[in-house]
């Protein structure tokens, strides 16, 4: 249909020429690079760690898919070359549950931000953890709603500034590992984007582990969080992480609160076994129903 060709000419942006020069290129949608993230943003590093982690884990990439929500981190699905979904705000985990339960052979990753997962998606997070659905949730926590212009998030430290808390955040923030742990997640870790290699290893480990795994990735937001709070730019935040993070594997998740510019405790906190949702479901099906 000639109008279709005309349409393609007028509508689609010109493809960026791709060259396979980097080992990561086969896991990234090179036709969409350059990406939209700001200079000084940590999400790019998180994606690098993820891409490396995918390769390190040596899982079947064909059977792996990624779901993202809305927000800056929510754009990750658009840059990763797996079967990828950019869905609604906060419901990525529910979407992923549907994929997993309908086809238990697939490994699903939900890669989204703190606002998407813990605020509007909070309810779905605790339920998926309770059920122990087999998925890996990578939550990039930059303490703010960046895509929409810097509003307060449920992870924004107390007294930090944001556009909707112009006199300082009134509310105490969530402690993501604590919620994940108490809701039943089998693998809980937290790293900053500074600890790229450890983050990569964590991702590789979690990808091979069946059950609900959560990795919180602390990231700078140069455009909003650090600018509004006068903390410098991305590099200054990385220096802060360098001087103020402490690795404590196995630490009780109760003690992992993050205050405004306080020490950040990172590490792998929870690594346990629990029957996954499909394990329990199949057991019920064969034991109870089929009788």
């Amino acid at each position, binding site marked *: 249909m000639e109008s279709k060709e005309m349409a393609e000419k007028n509508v689609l942006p010109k493809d960026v020429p791709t060259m396979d020069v980097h080992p990561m290129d086969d896991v990234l949608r090179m036709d969409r690079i350059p990406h939209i993230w700001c200079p000084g943003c940590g999400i790019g590093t998180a994606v690098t760690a993820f891409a490396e982690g995918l390769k390190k884990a040596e899982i079947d990439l064909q059977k792996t898919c990624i779901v993202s929500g809305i927000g800056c981190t929510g754009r990750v699905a658009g840059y990763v070359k797996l079967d990828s979904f950019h869905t609604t705000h906060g419901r990525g985990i529910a979407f992923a549950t549907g994929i997993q339960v309908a086809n238990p052979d697939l490994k699903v990753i939900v890669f989204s931000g703190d606002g998407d997962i813990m605020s509007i998606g909070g309810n779905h997070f605790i339920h998926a953890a309770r059920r122990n659905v087999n998925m890996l949730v990578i939550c990039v926590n930059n303490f703010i709603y960046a895509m*929409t212009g810097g509003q307060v998030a449920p992870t924004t430290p107390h007294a930090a500034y944001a556009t909707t*808390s112009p006199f300082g955040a009134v509310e105490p923030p969530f402690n993501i590992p604590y919620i994940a742990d108490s809701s039943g997640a089998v693998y809980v870790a937290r790293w900053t984007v500074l600890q790229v290699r450890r983050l990569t290893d964590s991702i590789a480990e979690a990808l091979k582990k069946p059950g609900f795994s959560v990795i919180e990735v602390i990231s700078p937001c140069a455009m909003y969080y650090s600018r509004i709070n006068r903390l410098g730019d991305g590099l200054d935040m990385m220096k802060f992480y360098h001087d103020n993070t402490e690795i404590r594997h196995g630490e009780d998740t109760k003690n992992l609160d993050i205050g405004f510019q306080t020490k950040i405790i990172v590490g792998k906190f929870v690594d346990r076994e629990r029957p996954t949702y499909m394990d329990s479901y199949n057991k019920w099906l064969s034991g109870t129903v089929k009788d």
Partner: protein
Amino acid sequence: MAFRNSEGLKMKANPRDVRTGTYYMDGDIAAGYGALAAGCRFIGGYPITPSTEAAESFARIAPQSGAVFVQMEDELASVASIMGASWSGVKTMTITSGPGYSLMMEAIGLGAMMEAPFVILNIQRGGPSTGVPTKTGQADMMQSRWGSHGDYEVIAISPDSPQELFDFMIKAFNLAEKYRCPVMVMSDECVGHMSEKVVVPPAEEIELEPRRIYTGPKEEYLPFKPDQDLVPKMVKAGDGYNLYVSGASHDERGYPIIYQKGKNQSDSTARRLVDKIRLNADKIIELHEEKLDDAEVVVVSYGITSRVAVRGIELARKKGIKVGKLRLVTVWPFPDQRISELAAKVKAFVVPEINYGQVVYDVERCSHGEANVVLVPHGGAGVHDPEDILEAIEYAATEKKKIRKVIIRKTRLEKKVFGGGLK
């Protein structure tokens, strides 16, 4: 609270809430100023492009007046929180856009059933689904009327400039208090992000509708016993009335009913909820009409499109076509009667909308086959090309036959993208 008045008399705005002056500001920011001036004391909101600036501007100016902004965890929580705030006695609203608006649908039904006055400001964007967050659209108009389940009526008004965004916030709060129903201010990203002159008048010039409070004996209070105009009087939680409000179909006491012995089963609560607005429609509907006296073609539009239509009408008048403008300030309840009247007089209606046909179907319905109805659609993420509106007016003026369906014009954009057009 300052606005309590059981006689239904008008009150003036509180000078502490009104930032009198002449500004050059964004529509969104003007909306925040308007909300505070109207006496809004609580906003539960959730950030969504392109409406976030309205929430932010309110968050900045609210503490001085003792008003509160809470960023809730999502839109469902936002609208639930404002209904609670409404029952604790304050004027309240929330601010959102397309996807957030879709999440609020269940709660809008609850608000209609509980007759809690509240305002929702929807800064529409390109849709459906996530769509185009940073560009304009007008595709939520039908959703504002029919989005929730069951029968209920809402009031929806559509501003076309930052000045109107300020004024209409006050209008919306007044309508909400008067009719105790959800009031939607259906703006769009273009008006929301447009910077223009906004004049904020002194507080004495701003008239507010106070809440209708019941002041009779406590034992005789029936929360849903309507007045003459079908609107019941309200009280607030904490005043000793032992209030019971629920979303279930209820009787005058507010208690859920399934079967009332000896009474008409089919006249459920929903009947009064719809009559409340339908029978008062003539008092609610506001229209701006221009050049209709000799008009053969009438351009029916709302929001930003009505400003683009002005250009189309200018060009058409220059060519000698007798075209007039009917701007829908109130979109719901729909001005059935006025459209019906005009249909008997004119040849055709031209309806430009930034969607693929929503309000145009109500224009078609009310013209009863007496005038042709021409739609100038637009997918969103931009505004109309006035030339498209001009061409539609030209066609409408020259078409002699009575055509029994909506004539959908192929716009320049559609031709550019799909060659000869889609069909």
